[in-house]
């Protein structure tokens, strides 16, 4: 996927107002099956996989023993004993090694990342385009669900998920048909305003929706509790997953720093990752993501700050190339679509 096709702002607006399609073939697809698959996944990931019915998906995290994030991913239950994990491209090797290290007998692991193509079709017109493109018989998935369908005699998995804050589907298929599938979909969606979109727009869209990016907002040194992802951690499930004890302690005792959303209140340079945040003379945090928001028209970002300064309304100073500009902690997310 290129950074941009026609321009980040234009692509960003297409997704907010009509629809955009992203080539996300770089992402990893792991399949896990076998009678012990569910138990294995519940001992590997933070969310409760047992809550998934067949055809349902959930956002979940893979942690190290210290509770730090190895990866954040979506887990789908394709069949009673078959699961799909969609993982970050940069983490395929690390995730695979971690799974292989922990895998017990009776669980079959298969990495199909190299042979799987994927597209994210996102925006208020995404479903209308998907229906027109895939045809009348397409079993439309509901939010977070996944369905299987045949397109030109090829199996296509469609999940009602995304990384933009808009409605839409993520489509998975065998790599051989990727180019044809992408071009045909673009053609079919053109009358409804569908545009090809790149990594640049993907980043500004996910940032406005406050969806974390692993490597920026998530890291091996930060836990999901610090990242504000407690909703996707089940501490009540029976299974022990790596880092569970650390997370339990954080939940009881609290954390020192939290991931917050902030906006630029000055007319200054836009926030970027790794800018330091100050209150008076003291450093109280550091940014992990930042960009000018195409939807809102001002600079926005995410940062880890001391919990004392994490309340919306708190005004901090952000240091940009030796100069300090004012930012304000705000409620997450920056953007929420009208339902």
């Amino acid at each position, binding site marked *: 996927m290129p*950074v*941009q096709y026609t*321009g*980040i*702002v234009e692509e*960003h607006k297409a997704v907010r107002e009509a629809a955009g399609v992203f080539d996300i073939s770089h992402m990893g697809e792991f399949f896990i099956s076998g009678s012990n698959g569910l138990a294995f996944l519940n001992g590997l990931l933070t969310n409760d996989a047992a809550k998934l019915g067949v055809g349902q998906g959930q956002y979940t995290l893979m942690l190290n023993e210290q509770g730090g994030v190895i990866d954040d991913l979506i887990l789908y239950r394709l069949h009673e004993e078959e699961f799909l994990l969609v993982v970050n491209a940069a983490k395929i090797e690390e995730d695979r090694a971690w799974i292989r290290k922990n895998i017990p007998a009776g669980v079959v692991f298969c990495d199909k990342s190299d042979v799987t193509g994927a597209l994210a079709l996102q925006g208020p017109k995404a479903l209308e385009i998907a229906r027109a493109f895939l045809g009348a018989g397409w079993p439309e998935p509901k939010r977070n669900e996944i369905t299987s369908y045949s397109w030109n005699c090829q199996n296509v998995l469609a999940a009602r998920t995304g990384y933009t804050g808009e409605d839409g589907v993520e489509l998975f298929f065998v790599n051989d048909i990727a180019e044809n599938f992408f071009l045909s979909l673009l053609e079919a969606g053109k009358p409804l305003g569908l545009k090809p979109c790149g990594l*640049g727009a993907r980043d*500004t869209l996910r940032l406005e929706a406050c969806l974390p990016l692993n490597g920026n907002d998530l890291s091996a040194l930060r836990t999901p509790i610090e990242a504000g992802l407690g909703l996707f951690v089940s501490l009540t499930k029976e299974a022990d997953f790596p880092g569970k004890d650390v997370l339990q302690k954080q939940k009881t005792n609290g954390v020192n720093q939290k991931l917050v959303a902030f906006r630029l209140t000055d007319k*200054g*340079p*836009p926030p*970027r990752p790794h800018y330091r945040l100050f209150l008076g003379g003291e450093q109280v945090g550091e940014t992990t993501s930042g*960009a*000018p928001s*195409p939807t809102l028209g001002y600079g926005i970002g995410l940062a880890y700050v001391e919990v004392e300064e994490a309340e919306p309304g708190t005004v901090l100073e952000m240091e940009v*190339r030796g100069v300090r500009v004012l930012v304000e902690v705000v409620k997450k997310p920056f953007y929420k679509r009208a339902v």
Partner: protein
Amino acid sequence: MSTIPEQLRYAASHEWIKVEGETGTVGISDHAQHELNDVVYVELPKVGTKIAAGAVVAVIESVKAASDIYSPASGEVVEVNGDLVKKPELVNSDPYGAAWLFRLKLSSPAEVEALKDAAGYKSQIGE
């Protein structure tokens, strides 16, 4: 295809310079503004700053990223284009005109001769 005016000189890092007497006016190329896309913020040097050729002298921020701008020649900054503070988008719409960045009193005008001419820059960017 981007616009590459004949009368300017170009640095490999995509800045242009126009020399009139002892003064050089500096901006970024049409190709560079197109690559950056959607410029949202321009940070200019202070008048009086003495700068060496190749040193970072300004920053242009697009939606995508912050990009350093290098001075194509050595000298003292004698004027900056304050319009860009309020209208950074001029960098996209008029890179060779209204979006000039700053003017230098050149300390060694011969440096400019070593920069690329339009044909050399054109071949560098593969057009």
